[in-house]
């Protein structure tokens, strides 16, 4: 575990060095402030549109940070041949996979915390009522979302030939699941065989990332969700993250370390 944390620490340092996070954060802040300064019919009390657009930008930014950071980890180590001295130390391939996962997840969580701090300030400046429990749940569930996506992208980084292809594919898959995942079962029921069965198979096996998307609950100040459902969603994220990590390790265990 200590070895994995050490590897993960390096990934977090990489987040500080690279400009992705800073660019995305500044972009989100500037766009939100610009939108917030707009005046609609002389009314400046409308807050929900601002929250919705700010959360959308946060979701896009965190997804891009998580996927782009993860996709290049293992391929970069192999390309620069730094993987050989790394594995020559008492570091197993599982340590490496788990360490990379921990590092990418920690980096995403740090970015997420900064984004939510900004979002909290924006909301507090405009809102009359804030459901704090939902804010905390939304933050933790988005971190859980990042964990599943990072584990999935890590699997992609040992199976897909190039980091750019992996990044694109992961973004498409995560975006599609978020957009259409909830409705896939409904769509399948309206189709003919064998497409129906195939689609249902996808529906029941894919990770339902929409479980972690509480944006509408936050935007519309809905009542806090039950703690039991929140724990259920966290368990679901843990299961899928573990599945993807084990699959990554199984593939990486037998993989030749040359590009």
């Amino acid at each position, binding site marked *: 575990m200590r070895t994995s944390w050490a590897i993960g620490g390096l990934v977090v340092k990489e987040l500080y060095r690279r400009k992705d996070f800073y660019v995305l954060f500044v972009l989100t802040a500037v766009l939100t402030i610009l939108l917030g300064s*707009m005046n*609609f*019919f*002389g*009314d400046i*009390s*409308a*807050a*929900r*549109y601002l929250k919705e657009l700010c959360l959308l930008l946060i979701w896009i930014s965190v997804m891009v940070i998580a996927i782009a950071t993860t996709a290049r980890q293992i391929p970069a180590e192999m390309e620069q041949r730094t993987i050989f001295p790394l594995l020559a130390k008492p570091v197993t391939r599982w340590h490496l996979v788990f360490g990379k996962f921990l590092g990418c997840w920690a980096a995403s969580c740090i970015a997420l915390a900064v984004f939510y701090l900004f979002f909290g300030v924006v909301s507090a400046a405009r809102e*009359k009522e804030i459901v704090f429990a939902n804010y905390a749940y939304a933050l933790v*569930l988005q971190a859980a979302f990042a964990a599943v996506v990072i584990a999935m992208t890590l699997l992609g980084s040992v199976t897909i030939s190039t980091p750019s292809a992996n990044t694109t594919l992961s973004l498409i898959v995560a975006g599609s699941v978020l957009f*259409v995942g*909830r*409705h896939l*079962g*409904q*769509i399948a*029921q309206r189709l003919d065989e064998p497409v129906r069965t195939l689609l249902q198979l996808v*529906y*029941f096996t894919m990770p*339902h990332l*929409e*479980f*972690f*998307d*509480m944006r*509408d*609950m936050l*935007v*519309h*100040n*809905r009542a806090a*969700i*039950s703690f039991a*459902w929140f724990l*259920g*969603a966290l368990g679901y994220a843990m299961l899928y993250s573990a599945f993807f990590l084990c699959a990554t390790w199984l593939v990486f265990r037998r993989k030749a370390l040359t590009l």
Partner: protein
Amino acid sequence: MNRLAYFALMALFASCFTASTVLAPRFAERNGRRPGRGDLLSVVLGDSRRLFANHFFLKADAYFHSGYYPSIFDVKDEGKVRGDVHLVSEQESDPHDAASKEEHQDPAHEPVKGKDKEQDHDHDHDHGHGQGESDGDRHDQEDELKFLGKASDWIDRFGRHFFPSEHSHLERATGQEEILPWLRLAAELDPNKVEVYTVAAFWLRTRLGKPDEAIQFLREGWLLNPDAHQILCELGKVFAENRNDPVRARNVLELAIVKWRKGEMGKAEPDVFGLGQIVTALVRLDESEGRWQEGVGHLELLKTISPNPDKIEILLKEFRGKVSGKGKDR
């Protein structure tokens, strides 16, 4: 030689630019559209921005329901997308006009032919809104919006805890300003989407107490859609009900009838509901100003388009009685 080529290129560029500035407005006029404002959105997105306008209009409706709204995947059994625009039905039922129950029972406020069929969803809403019912009572009647149905599997059941899956509305006193940004954006994206102006003006004047902003927005809409009788009808209502300016209201409403005749008379299915709204507003003005003779004329017109001509006839007799009474007094 090189210099000549540069000059030729520049001359070509200048002539292309000049031609585009001359032709673009003419082309827009020919298509029946007035050129929109030269804002960033129209410059960047061009005509494609109209595609997004409807999305933002529906977004305003979704905000009114606090996020509980059918997506494009939530369909009825018959295959129709669920959820007509509730904001429009709120405006058309116009509970603010019928502030009291007595007024609501006025035969002149009867629905008009042609609207019942197409707005069965709206009709369900109309019974509850604006008559002092609690939110709970109102929601019981809104079965049409229970678009989610029973959960089909555990994923569906579990997922419903993480998005708004219960019907609620923005509170009357506060929160209704939340729909305004989306309506403004929809108007920016499609300046020819007439219902955006009328719906926004309705909410501004009745729920948010901003008749001046409503007038300003309707004027913007009128400038871009000079033949839209709906905009004039709403403008007339603002003058009549919020500005207490019956003379201007009458002028605007009469112009709305002229525009309606110009635009709808030749159509296979004219907007009878729109005409009914204009005439009803005029009847109210006649009643409040004691212009019974003109009121008779308007009620006779209303009788031809109302699904309940018997009720209009009762009111017509009342108006005729006032006219004859006035004659006797003289």
